[in-house]
């Protein structure tokens, strides 16, 4: 019966596949290839082996961006998920205004990107203005400013996922726990948390990849100031490409390393938290 169906490949798949090839497959392949070349334009390349990778690692800016992104991601993982889970616990109770609260906490995520960065910077720079400084005054200000911005943006999104997870916990289990004399904390740690482990998996995954990839907010809030000290990996790679002549090859090598980092961490994390999941 499906035999006829295969002939329709050009209609069903080809348009999407063509766009996917132009927008992703070719640029991805070219990107890997270019990372082994020195070039100023794509038509004028010169094979240099691993030189770009060596230069990437000997570039202070890259190492600093790597540490910045790592620290930023670890701190965000905690702030976003603890706050999101706490909110989800509160907002799955039976009380008034629950839907309104959910909407408000989700809102920053909708605005997103560069606009959210500038909206946030008005508040932060206004507050810091009382001490006569702004966010670019010191690297620590930029770091915590970005953590706050990221938490503001991602918490609502993760909260929605945790709420969906918590709503799937059977009431019979929490009631049984209550009858057995379990208090709030033991119900939380021994019943609810193990059962929402799939939500924890996906929320840590999303926070991890989003925080590592952060670009727009970084550009809007600090743009790396002071002196490129608050630059995450994505922004550092962008500046290597478009801000330093003769460094395009190094930029592409950094981008490949960035991709590998995201891929490895994401798959390690998925394997690690998946193993803690249980069924109800």
């Amino acid at each position: 019966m499906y035999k006829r169906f295969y002939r329709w490949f050009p209609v069903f798949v080809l348009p999407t596949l063509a766009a996917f090839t132009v927008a992703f497959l070719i640029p991805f392949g070219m990107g890997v290839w270019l990372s082994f070349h020195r070039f100023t334009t794509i038509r004028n390349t010169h094979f240099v082996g691993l030189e770009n990778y060596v230069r990437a690692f000997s570039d202070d800016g890259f190492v600093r961006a790597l540490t910045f992104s790592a620290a930023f991601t670890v701190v965000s993982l905690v702030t976003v998920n603890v706050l999101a889970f706490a909110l989800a616990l509160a907002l799955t109770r039976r009380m008034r205004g629950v839907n309104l609260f959910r909407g408000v906490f989700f809102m920053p995520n909708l605005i997103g990107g560069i606009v959210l960065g500038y909206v946030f910077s008005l508040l932060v720079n206004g507050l810091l203005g009382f001490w006569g400084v702004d966010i670019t005054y010191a690297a620590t200000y930029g770091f915590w400013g970005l953590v706050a911005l990221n938490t503001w943006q991602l918490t609502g999104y993760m909260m929605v996922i945790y709420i969906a997870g918590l709503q799937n916990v059977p009431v019979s289990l929490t009631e049984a726990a209550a009858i057995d004399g379990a208090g709030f904390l033991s119900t939380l740690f021994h019943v609810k948390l193990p059962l929402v482990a799939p939500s924890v998996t996906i929320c840590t995954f999303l926070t991890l990849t989003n925080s590592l990839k952060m670009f727009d907010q970084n550009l809007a809030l600090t743009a790396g100031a002071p002196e490129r000290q608050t630059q995450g990996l994505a922004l550092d790679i962008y500046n290597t490409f478009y801000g330093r002549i003769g460094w395009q090859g190094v930029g592409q090598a950094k981008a490949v390393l960035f991709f590998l980092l995201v891929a490895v961490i994401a798959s390690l994390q998925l394997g690690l938290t998946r193993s803690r999941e249980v069924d109800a």
Partner: protein
Amino acid sequence: MTHRREKRTNRLLTALLLVLALVFLLPVILVVLNSFKSRLYISAAPFALPDTETFVGWENYLNGLRSAGFAAAFGRSVFITVGSVLLLVVGCSMTSWYLARAKGWFPKVLYLLFVFSMIVPFQMVMYTLTYVVGQVGLDTVVGILPVYLGFGSGLTVFILSGFVRSIPHELEEAAMMDGAGPLQCFFRVIFPVMRPTAVTVSILNAMWIWNDYLLPYLILGTDQKTVPVAIQIAMQGAYGSTDYGGLMAMLVLAIIPIIAFYLVGQKYIISGVVAGAVKG
């Protein structure tokens, strides 16, 4: 007894959530307030309410719309978002149906490639994508639509084929027995069943395409600005001075459609977040 305690906890929680909700809303409220103040008073006293001296009515909005070509940028953003989402939802639902039903290694490999593209950071393909798109002449407001189709197809195919697999084969087999060709079968039988998921996935795509800064900036440049690009340019300021009044107005104008969109499609947005999560 327990009932009364629950009531007290709820009251306490509500108070706590109200404070937190206010903190979440504060940056946006601040931008709205300042959009009605004269530009001279914005960075000097961002927390002051507009008064008779600082209030300028709609002046910032008029300036913002006029000076930076913001109205044109707004129209362009609407066109790009709507066009790309339509292409994505039609193209990818057809592709997803084919890939989910076809047998053999080729559809499987294609599906895996789509999924793989989801974890690749944009910086990996940023430079080469700009080049390829220029070469094939897609660096126009219309040409960017297929670029978004290609770049957004990973997530879209992933979510939609997950859904197609849950549709029983019998449904389309019955239609084919009755003599319907694959196209008829798809649009008359399969697509109507997919509609809720298709709406959900459209909303997810609309959100990131509307907010996307880097792709339109690199492909369309500053002559054909979208809203995020216009805001970034306005912020950097022509001749070194930023019109903060106009900027505040632009931020508000950029946020309004998203909030309106959210209020209309709230149900689908929430289920979209959850759908994107559980399949991950």
